[in-house]
Structure formats: C-alpha cells, structure tokens
C-alpha cells in the first residue's frame, strides 16, 4: 500500500528548504513531486533597479558556495556589453579564484555525500582539507566565502610572490590527500555499496532532460562549458573533461574527484604562467543597448546569464539560470523506483544549491486590505500549511 512521505521543507538531510513529496510503497518510491519557491528573494526584479556595479554585489549573494561563478558569469557578460577587455593578469587571477572555488565546492560535496551515506569520518576528513582552501581564499581576497574579487573590467586585488608560494605549497598537501580520497572513495566496501547503482540516469535521459554538470558527465556525456564554449583564458589552459560511465551516484563521486585533480593542474599552470601588468581597466558607466548571453561552468554545472541593456546605467533584464535548476527534472526521474534510504543521497548527488535556483520576485507581500507584513518565516509556514494539508489528513489514520 502506498502512502506519501514529505521530505522538506525542513529536514535534516536538506541544507536548504525544498519540498519533495514522495509516494512510497514499503521502501520503494513510486512517484515524486518537487515543489520549489521556499527561498525566493526577488533577484531578477531587483537587478533591474540597481546599477551595473551594484549588481555585482547582488549576483554574488545568489549563493554562498558558488558565489564567484555568478559574479564571473555576470561580469563576463557586462564586459562584452561595454566592449572592454580585462587585462591578462586580471583574467588569470579571476579564473584562479574560479578553480579554487571549484576545489572547495567539490570537497564540500564529498563531505556531504559521506555524511548522507552515514560515513562521518570521510565527512570530517574532507572538510578538514577544505579549511586549507578556505585559508588560501582568505589570504587572496580577505573572505572565506563571497570573495568580492570581481569588478567590471578585471579584479580588485593583486597577488604577490608570497601568496603564490603559499598556494603552490598548499596544493601539494591537497594533492596528496585527494589521492587518499580517491582510493578510499572507490574502494571502501560499505561506502561503495551505498553509492553504486543508486540514482541511475541513463545517457539518453540525461540528454533529453537537459541535465548539466557532473550529473550529466557521470552518464558518459562530455559536456563542459570550458571546452565547448571557452570563455576567458580556457582556450589556452590545458585540461581534460572528466567523465564516468556508471551513470549513478558513484560515477558522480568519481567525476568530482577526477575534476579535483584537473583543478590542481590548472592552478599550477595559471600560477607558473602568471603575466605581469595591470589587473583591471576602467569601465564606463553606461552600456549601449545590446544583449549578451554569458555561460560559465560552475562547480555544479552550466551557469547561464542573459543580460540586456538599454543604454542607461541599469540593466533592462537580467535572467539567471543556475545549474541546480537544470538538474531538477533529472532528479525526479532518478527518484522513481529508488529506495527511501537513497533519497538524500540522490538529492545530494546533483549537488543542490537551492538558493541558486530560486531568484524571482520578493515574496514579502502585504495581503490586499491588511496592513501587516508577512515575514518570510510566516509565509513559509503558510505555504507549508496549505500545501501539506493533504499529507496531514493521511497521517490521521494508522499508517499500516
């Protein structure tokens, strides 16, 4: 017999609120339904009212883990609109921070996957190593998250010799530890038994449902924006696109670990070939009426910004499609006919960054006729009540 289980919006497995309503029979999921919208902040509408520079601040706060992806994608687009080209040194520093962000995001994901699988020791080890990367980022930019290093026309801070040496030394430690994780993550029997065969997404489904990032690369499709549509300096930097053939969560783990090694290689190349010169050029205040499509490979997949300008100093339209939104349709497909025990793992395997995926209009809405403000919390509770009303009725009978 079937009954419905709600996972979320509040659940220990989820780092951000999202509501997943699953119809289960015993331990097997028959159907899944995804409800979004708990984390809206009205970014696209807000971006139309702020200037180009203020929007860098805004796009950075779309997400914490992939903050640099959003700013870089935005700034790349705006630079094309304003027809300015940032200097080489600025670009090298910008993409150095991109690769550092990719490392820390993948290490975070490895820890989260370990935690969802119950392997807490793995979680503690990978997050200990993530501290090394966070220290590097703090030395470069002053912050552990939200580095604020991009500006239109280049970057805001420069690197000196001591920082470069520190980064290269830390890379050696990280490389050694990542080899240990590669061995552990693929050979530890209970961990592999937990991950193998879970969340199967065939190659055809991955392509048809427009999945992005490591999710689609683990199904054997070599789709990577850095190779397909090279932006910045990626046509000069040598690296490989990492794929796996197993199409399940184990494949996604392997893809991310392989990408860690690619990141180390890219960072070494960037640091050894760092050109001299200025780090930024001056940007004009206004942009001519034009439109641009900017794509970027964030740690979670393809990030796409569509920016349209109308000649003033504010954008006409900023459309952001974060990578996690592209993976939702594939998640529903993966959940069907899986076990309940696998839900957090499947969901974590697409590396959900739900606050990236939600940015529409402000939810703070005054009901017509009433003068009180409904805070975000109250609105969340309200929408939960209305949407969870059905589930509550089902709990009124004994479940078995």
């Amino acid at each position: 017999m079937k009954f419905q289980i709600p996972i979320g919006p509040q659940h220990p497995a989820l780092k951000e609120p999202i509501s997943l309503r699953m119809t289960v029979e015993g331990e097997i999921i028959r159907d899944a339904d995804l409800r979004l919208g708990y984390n809206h902040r009205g970014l696209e509408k807000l971006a139309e009212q702020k200037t180009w520079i203020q929007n860098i601040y805004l796009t950075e706060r779309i997400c914490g883990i992939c903050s640099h992806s959003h700013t870089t994608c935005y700034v790349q687009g705006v630079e094309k609109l304003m027809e300015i080209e940032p200097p080489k040194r600025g670009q090298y520093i910008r993409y150095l921070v991109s690769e550092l962000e990719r490392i820390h995001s993948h290490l975070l994901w490895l820890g989260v996957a370990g935690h969802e699988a119950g392997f807490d020791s793995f979680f503690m080890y990978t997050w200990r190593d993530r501290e090394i990367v966070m220290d590097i980022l703090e030395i470069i930019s002053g912050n552990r998250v939200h580095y604020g290093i991009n500006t239109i026309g280049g970057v805001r801070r420069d690197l000196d010799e001591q920082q470069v040496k520190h980064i290269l030394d830390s890379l050696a430690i990280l490389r050694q530890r990542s080899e240990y994780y590669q061995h552990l993550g693929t050979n530890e029997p209970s961990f592999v038994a937990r991950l193998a065969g879970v969340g199967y997404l065939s190659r055809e489904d991955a392509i048809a449902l427009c999945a992005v990032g490591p999710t689609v690369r683990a199904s054997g499709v070599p789709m990577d924006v850095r190779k397909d549509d090279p932006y910045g300096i990626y046509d000069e930097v040598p690296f490989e696109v990492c794929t796996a053939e197993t199409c399940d969560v184990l494949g996604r783990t392997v893809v991310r670990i392989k990408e860690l090694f690619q990141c180390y290689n890219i960072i070494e190349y960037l640091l050894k070939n760092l050109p001299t010169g200025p780090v930024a050029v001056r940007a004009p205040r206004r942009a001519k009426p034009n439109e641009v499509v900017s794509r970027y490979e964030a740690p979670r997949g393809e990030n796409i910004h569509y920016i349209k300008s109308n000649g003033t100093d504010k954008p006409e339209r900023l459309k952001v499609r974060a990578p996690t939104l592209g993976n939702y349709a594939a998640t529903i497909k993966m959940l069907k006919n899986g076990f309940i025990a696998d839900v957090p793992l499947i969901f974590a395997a697409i590396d959900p960054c739900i606050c990236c995926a939600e940015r529409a209009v402000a939810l703070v809405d005054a009901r017509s006729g009433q003068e009180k403000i409904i805070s975000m919390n109250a609105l969340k509770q309200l929408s939960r009540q209305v949407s969870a009303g059905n589930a509550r009725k089902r709990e009124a009978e004994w479940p078995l």
Partner: protein
Amino acid sequence: MATVKTLIYLIVYPGLLFLFLYSTFVEWYDRKLYARLQNRMGPTHTGRFGLLQPIADFFKLMAKEDIVPDRADRKMFSALPAVGLAIVFTAMLLLPVWNYSLDRPSVTSFNGDLIVLLYLLSLPTFIFFLAGWSSTNLFSTIGGARVLTMLFGYEVPLFLAVLSPAVLANSWRLAEIAAFYRQRPALALVNLLGFVIALICVQAKLERTPFDIPHAETEIVGGTFTEYSGKKLAIFRLMMDAEMVVAAGLLATVFLGGFPGGALLGLVNFIVKTLVVIFFLSLIRATTSRIRVDQVVSFAWKYLAPLAILQLLIVILVKGLLS
C-alpha cells in the same frame, strides 16, 4: 547481612548507581575515540578531559520540555522509556560481577541465565519498535519497521555465535562458562570466529554504524525517537548506553573469560575487558558508512549466519576431540 549485601548489589554495585556512572563513562570513551579517529577533539571542556560531558547531557535533557504528540497513546508513549531502562538494568544484574565464585553462588546466577540474558537483550528492540509505533509519526513508523527488519538479520547469528562457547563449556550458566575459559585459556581461541561475528551482531543490535538505519538522521529525521524529548529522551539514551555496557559485558564473559577476583579486582577486570570490546565497536563505527536495511538482512543471512553455523561445527568438532 545478606539483605544489606543484596541491597548494595542492587543499588550501588553492579546496580543502578554503578551502571549509571559506568554507562556515561562508556559513552565518553566511545565519543572521544570516535572523535580522535576523525582528527577532532571530542568532549574536552566539561570536567577533566570532558569526562562529565555525558552526565551533563543527561541532566540537560532532563530539564527540557517534554512533549507528547496529540494522537499518541499517552500511557504507552510515557511508559516505554522506563520499561526499557528496567529491562536493561535487570540484564545487568545477571552478569557475573562481584558475586562470582562458584562455591558461593549468588541469587542471580542460575543454570540457564545465559538464555535469560540473551532474551532480555532482545527485548529493547521491541521497545524501540513500540516507541516508533506509538508515536504515530510517519518517520517513527518507518524507523520502527526498520528496527524489526534488522532484527530478522542479526538475531540468529548473534544467538549462534554466543551459544558456541557455551556448548564447548558444557553449561548454560554464565559463571561456569567464564570459569571454564579461565582454566583453559587456549580453548578461547576456538571461538575467535564467533567473537568476530558477535561483535558485528552486537553493533547491529546497538544500532550503531554501519547498522544505524533505524535512526538514520539524514533520512528519517530521528527514526523511532523523532517524537521523544526531555526526560523520556534522556532515559532512552541512558538505556542505549547501558545496553552497550551489558552487551559488552556479555561478550567479555563468554569470550574473554569473565571477571574473577571478588569485589575490587573483579571491578577492574570488568572495566578493562568491557573497554576492550567497546574499543572494537567504536573502531567499526568510525571506519564504515551506513548500509541499507535490505543490505543488512542479505549480508546477515549470506555471510553471518553460515559463518556462525561453521563456528558451531568447529566447536562440536573440538568437543569431540577433547573427550
């Protein structure tokens, strides 16, 4: 005199007070070992080396608000923790600590107390299931179902593994089994396979990784204990720690030769041998990840049960060779 001794036996050692203090010590030991294996500190500040941390946790939980869900059966919901604790304390009394020597047998040592102890140790599993059932919460019900599913897996290998040394020692009485292995320590090696199987099954009984599916925090919120809070949760946690002590004591008695030496030396023996067993249990916990409930059952029936039967055959062979 005898009543005073019995009262001390029941309340102080190895009764309530000792069990309370020792189970909190064992929880500290487990948490500290787990943390150090993960390159963390573990409990550090409360008391010297964080020794008072589990006691502090217990008292903190006792002071928290105690909520009984609306639709739950109030009496059963509230009675279950107390019943569980009573069961585990009774099981503790059966272990041959203190009143040990065979020429002055205590009232709690009788022929067949091994079976009674095993039975009392399998009751907490039903208590967990009933706790989940009477919570009328979806997650608790799933947790309760998982507890019972796991019971189908590990109970049979555990019984077989623990009964093998008893078969070799020719007795169902814990005190006699321990005495037998102390007189002939070489024969304890015959039961090595059984020891390993019993360690794995005890890990499953105590619901620790890799078998902590019933209260897997990331999947079903709290499992069977989702709705428990305040005093009831404090008593459940104490019950789980005491269950660990009793299970470790059982393994130490049957496989490692018991706790000879009267009051003081017996206490030292008890602490040392149970800590050795718990060391292995913590090691397993820190180095594996959680496996699914169907994988537990298939693992138990494909590997553990045949190996336990093999252990029994070995014991019978050795017994035949000896006589």
